[in-house]
């Protein structure tokens, strides 16, 4: 069972929820940190990296001795990763989406794909929680290939909790796609509501079952609750705006350890998810 923890707005509590669910389910769990631009699950888990895998992505490389400058590759590329200017095609690897189309359309077989490193996968083992974390190299703009590589480490035999990147763009789609369930974490504020509605549009388009967790209940207003009721979206859990939770977070301590009564709430949440699937 794969459960993705996502949110339209950043800073609503994705990592808090992911880490606490994983700790509660240990050792029958695997935690994936797919927020590869700013992975942070490890801050709440002990244990050193025991395996590091460099992830490459395939980009075109043109053999200039074979190329006849016909320009087919540049015409084919929808992302303008190849431009036909001058006597040989010019490759912009940062624009490439790895479709491999240029290799196929080249009539003289002058294009080969070559690996270009984009980041690393780091594996840790922390008190029964195996963590697989992607870390994008600085300056690399395209996260989805690394996210797909992190997801290729999924252990299908157990419950998988995925900490997703914030937002509703390509990295989030790459993360949430083919999850069995997605939890959308939000806060009861106008910003929280605006970005929740965007995230709801995304998971509905993907056809992934989902529910909402409202974090820091007690601040803001009731509009997130009204929205969920009107849209018939289940509110799976409300986490109170509790100073003890904030203090535990700031010290890298899990909520279920710092505020014991929260363990039962997280367990209820997980049971609701399991019943839905």
């Amino acid at each position, binding site marked *: 069972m794969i459960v993705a923890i996502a949110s339209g707005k950043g800073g609503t509590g994705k990592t808090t929820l992911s880490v606490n669910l994983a700790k509660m389910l240990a050792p029958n769990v695997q935690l994936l940190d797919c927020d590869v631009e700013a992975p942070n699950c490890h801050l709440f888990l002990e244990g050193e990296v025991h395996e590091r895998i460099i992830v490459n992505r395939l980009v075109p490389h043109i053999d200039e001795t074979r190329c006849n400058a016909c320009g087919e590759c540049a015409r084919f590329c929808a992302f303008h990763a190849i431009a036909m*200017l001058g006597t040989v095609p010019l490759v912009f690897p940062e624009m490439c989406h790895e479709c491999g189309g240029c290799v196929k359309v080249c009539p003289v077989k002058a294009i080969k794909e070559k690996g270009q490193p984009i980041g690393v996968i780091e594996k840790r083992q922390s008190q029964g929680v195996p963590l697989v974390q992607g870390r994008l190299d600085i300056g690399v703009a395209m996260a989805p290939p690394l996210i797909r590589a992190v997801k290729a480490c999924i252990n299908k035999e157990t419950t998988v909790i995925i900490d997703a990147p914030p937002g509703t763009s390509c990295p989030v789609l790459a993360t949430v796609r083919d999850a069995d369930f997605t939890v959308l974490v939000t806060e009861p504020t106008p910003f929280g509501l605006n970005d929740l509605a965007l995230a709801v549009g995304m998971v509905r388009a993907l056809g992934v079952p989902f529910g909402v967790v409202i974090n820091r209940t007690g601040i803001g207003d009731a509009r997130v609750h009204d929205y969920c009721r009107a849209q018939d979206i289940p509110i799976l859990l409300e986490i109170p705006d509790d100073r003890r939770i904030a203090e535990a977070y700031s010290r890298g301590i899990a909520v279920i350890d710092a505020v014991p009564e929260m363990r039962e709430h997280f367990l209820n949440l997980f049971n609701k998810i399991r019943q839905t699937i």
Partner: protein
Amino acid sequence: MKIAFTTSGNDLQAPLDSRFGRAPKFLIYDLDSSAFELIDNQQNLNAAQGAGIQSAETVAKSGAQAVVTGHCGPKAFRALNAAGITIYTSDAPSVAGALDLYRQGQLKKAETADVEGHW
């Protein structure tokens, strides 16, 4: 020889646009005939990414051998260079002003991109 100017307007009095990749239009001026044509670049103005590359392709197709603009990003610079197009940057207020500076030989060739992508 033809020169491409970035602009938002329709004639020589129009302002010189400071952006290359996301310039609304290119005014292609023919030094030999003193005539000009306009090429719309609206599509690239709204492109998520790669605007500089596509704009460079557009300018190359127009037959221009030089570009006069405000700033040029890294991808556009590489693409224009590969096409053998010389890049001049200028803060002249109008296309006509930039053209005068070009004729007087007072425009400086850009040796590198002078802004980051998406500036």
